[in-house]
């Protein structure tokens, strides 16, 4: 039961691929979709695998399929639904998120994909006091990189959506009402000092516009490592005291987006222990990682558990590696070798990838 479903850019065949019959099978992303959609957001080892095999393949797995079926059936005049992927380390949460994001992209939604919220709360090289609100801090570097990637992803839609309010950046610069969003994004990339405020303005605008009944686009907010928004941060101010999370503009605006007071879209998130600060290594459940405040703010949400590979999925992954000439050791093609792989990796996707790497 391993077949490669070759995707053409026609969305009809893509729709057909996302059914239960194709569980455990791989589908290839067309290269025209891969470059704009994922400038950020994929795990590093997967990016290297894409470079080696010269193609990007996702496995169709139950958690991603579940979320996609809910996205198809949801009522978008009601407040946005929040989906949360959780599971042990390396079980495929980020990949399921990217699968769902790709589905939304093919439907023509606006994709707001934050690759890892943990990167915004640690290792900050430049911290500027915010121009808009003097109590808060700006992170220009992270904001500009994110804006650049956002522009690559949503190039075709940015010229169609117009701003609804007037934004004043400095005494001489302002963005008027009715200008295309692309101009706002370019403003943020060129003027590094006000980039975090641009990010905040962008989020607010998109949120307001998708809520209106006459909007012709839907918004998907995809956040990886959402437990960073309610944890602690390691960034220090000049007097060596720790920065509170509310004092960071990026985090503040993101938290406002995560509230389900807007309509016309969906919020898909992932928990992540690997990048998180001050959490034990064995914690993977939403209650443990989000903490009390996080859980209360995210409540109500739809938790989707991402387990390790089942027998069938493991078979499929093994056959995929064999087909792509990744499993080279002569012993790995025998039954004994396969049993040993299954035991050593305990069917965890990332462990299987690491073990098959050197075999």
């Amino acid at each position, binding site marked *: 039961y391993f077949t490669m479903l070759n995707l053409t850019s026609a969305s009809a065949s893509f729709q057909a691929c996302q059914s239960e019959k194709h569980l455990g099978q791989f589908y290839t992303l067309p290269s025209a979709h891969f470059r704009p959609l994922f400038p950020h957001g994929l795990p590093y080892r997967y990016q*290297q695998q894409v*470079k*080696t*095999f*010269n193609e990007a393949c996702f496995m169709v797995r139950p958690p991603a399929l579940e979320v996609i079926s809910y996205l198809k059936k949801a009522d978008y005049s009601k407040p946005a639904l929040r989906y949360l992927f959780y599971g042990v380390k390396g079980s495929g949460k980020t990949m399921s998120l990217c699968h769902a994001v790709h589905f939304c992209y093919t439907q023509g939604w606006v994709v707001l994909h934050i690759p890892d919220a943990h990167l915004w709360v640690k290792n900050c090289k430049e911290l500027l006091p915010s121009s808009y609100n003097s109590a808060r801090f700006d992170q220009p570097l992270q904001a500009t990189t994110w804006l650049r990637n956002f522009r690559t992803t949503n190039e075709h839609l940015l010229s169609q959506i117009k701003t609804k309010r007037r934004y004043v950046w400095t005494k001489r610069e302002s963005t008027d009402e009715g200008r295309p969003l692309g101009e706002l994004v370019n403003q943020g990339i060129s003027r590094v000092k006000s980039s975090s405020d641009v990010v905040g303005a962008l989020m607010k605008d998109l949120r307001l516009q998708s809520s209106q009944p006459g909007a012709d686009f839907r918004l998907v907010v995809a956040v990886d490592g959402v437990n960073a928004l309610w944890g602690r941060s390691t960034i220090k101010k000049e007097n060596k005291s720790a920065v509170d999370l509310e004092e960071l503009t990026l985090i503040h605006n993101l938290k406002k987006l995560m509230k389900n007071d807007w309509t016309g879209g969906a919020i898909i998130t992932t928990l992540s222990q690997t990048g998180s600060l001050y959490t034990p290594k064995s914690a993977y459940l939403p209650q443990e990682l989000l903490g009390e405040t996080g859980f209360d703010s995210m409540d109500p949400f739809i938790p989707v558990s991402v387990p390790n590979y089942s027998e069938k999925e493991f078979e499929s992954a093994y056959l995929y590696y064999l087909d*792509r*000439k*990744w499993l*080279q*050791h*002569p*012993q*790995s093609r*025998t039954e*004994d*070798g396969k049993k*040993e792989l299954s035991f050593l990796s305990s069917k965890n996707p990332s462990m299987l990838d690491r073990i098959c*790497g*050197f*075999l």
Partner: protein
Amino acid sequence: MAASLSGLLKPWTPRVFLVRWSRYNPYYLEPEVRKEAYSQPESELSAEEKEQRELKMIRPIKAAASGVTSSVFSDPVLSKFINMMMEHGNKVLAREIMTQTLENIKKKQVEKYHKAPEGQKEEIECNPYTIFHQALKNCQPVVGLESIRKGGKIYQVPIPLSDKRRSFLAMKWLITECRDNKHRRTHMYEKLSQEVMSAFVHEGNVIRKKNELHKMAESNRAYAHYRWW
């Protein structure tokens, strides 16, 4: 430890057993690690095999070394190389470097394979294990030089080397070359994979060193009969 007079070879275990040392009482037998040995039925080598099995049921057996596994993927040459790379007993790090090297070699080869046109796909060798073994074979010298003192002067005499010595020299040269002669900021696995790939096609510094040794041995051929063993 008991002396090696046969009368004293009894199953005597001291109170504190130093399992990690290799000086066992010769009474102890070697452990059998391979899985295939245990799945054989009552046939094959009936008299000798059965005698061995009887003996194993009675006599004590040494503890298996921690570097040996019964996995189908274990490779004695690779284990020897990892042990030679290991410093201060850090086997975890040495093994990590080795696996990253193999993965790096495989990645480069598979990338070349997928980008190559149909006709050239069969010529590209993707298996990192065959590449590694072939590279080691290419690095092994055929003859070595020994300093022999005759009549007050010391001559460099070409001598034959045993198989073990040759493979040891090949591995030693590979490791020292990667540690010393490469750029400071590259990772060890990167340096190793570059060196192994060039040794596979008979290029690179290790092959050059082997060839220089061969030339020296060839030029000192006249002293060959100074060797008396």
